[in-house]
């Protein structure tokens, strides 16, 4: 059975949070933080930086609660802020003298005999990481918002600052790139 916290709608929670109710904001955090943390982890590929980025995102969300006009768009708005935090972290990293580590290619070559089984094998997370790392930051952000976090195309357009058509084009291209990478893996696994 769902508790009162789980049943409350985004609208009700936002209304209470805007009125200064800390418990309401905590519920928003509990609901949305895992998605934001995973999104930032996928973009930053660094656990400590993703933790820090998640904290920064929610502090900014709290500061800007009053600026969100349509509460139905909470998730898109939140991911838009998370992406801004990510971009700032990247800029800071680039200013540092130490060059970032190149993304690791961790595709396994000894997977089981069936491509389907290979796709859902224990290495699938690594395989997916490798495939996502091959995408540009923008495409990766848009694709993940769609396929991992279930945002609508309109919400993604708003979060990315793109037209609806551009969102559809970029997600389509990102999917093709992802599939090329995954298909290579499946072929290796099937050999």
């Amino acid at each position, binding site marked *: 059975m769902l508790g009162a916290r789980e049943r409350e709608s985004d609208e009700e929670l936002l209304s209470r949070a805007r009125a200064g109710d800390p418990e309401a904001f905590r519920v928003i*955090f509990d609901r949305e933080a*895992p998605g934001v943390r995973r999104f930032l982890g996928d973009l930053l590929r660094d656990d400590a930086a993703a*933790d820090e980025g998640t904290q920064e995102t929610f502090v900014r969300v709290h500061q800007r609660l009053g600026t969100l006009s349509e509460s139905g768009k909470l998730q898109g708005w939140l991911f838009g802020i998370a992406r801004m935090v990510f971009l700032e972290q990247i800029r800071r990293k680039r*200013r540092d003298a130490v060059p970032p580590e190149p993304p690791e290619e961790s595709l396994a070559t000894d997977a089981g005999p069936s491509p389907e089984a290979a*796709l859902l094998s224990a290495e699938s*997370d690594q395989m997916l990481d490798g495939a996502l790392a091959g995408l540009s930051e923008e495409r990766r952000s848009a694709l993940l918002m769609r396929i991992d976090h279930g945002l609508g195309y309109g919400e993604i357009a708003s979060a990315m600052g793109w037209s609806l058509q551009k969102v559809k084009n970029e997600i389509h291209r990102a999917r093709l790139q992802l599939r090329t990478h995954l298909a290579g893996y499946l072929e290796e696994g099937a050999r």
Partner: protein
Amino acid sequence: MTHVPIEDMESIAAGERPGQSPVEIATHIAQCAECARELAWLRAEKALMARRPSPPTDHLWPAIAARLRHPRRRPHWAVRVSLAAGAAAAAAAVLVAVFRPGRPPVPAQPPQREQQAARPVRPRAAIDPKTLAALDRAEEDYRNAAKVLEGEYERLRPQLDPDLARRWDETLTRARAQLGESRAVAADDVNVRMRVLDGYAGYLRSLRYVVQESEEANP
């Protein structure tokens, strides 16, 4: 029927009801290899995403709650630096506006002291004393801003990782040396003086970065 729209395909892959008639879509997919392949990929995508674990986030809340209770104030050095650097940047911008249009740029002279000593000093066109005064003021503002940041870095430095502090020291020392050399050969050449101001702006950016990182390392 044309191919199934991607939104409908995504709904089917997610186990939701598509916008168009499900029967019509199912009939099309049964006959269209391209749509069937697309749906298979979308389902595989969905399955891959669903397998990913949710990262723990409870441990992140205490720091957020603390920041909401006690928001960070802008550090005092940031205010002082902004004022000084802002004034210097504004002065430099005015100088750019005054000097760039209609005046051919003076070719950059490599700072080779031996050659300069051997050659006779090239006569320069007379420069408006007000311009020189503005350059001096802008440079002074940058120097003041740098002093604030250098002081702040000195305060934070003992708590830093020694290797990191040593690397930052080297970088800053190198930047200061380059600035000093440029300034020494600039004399009253406006173009070179402008480049010196650019150098100060870059030095300030480096210092600001170092101080911010030091503060974050020692909250």
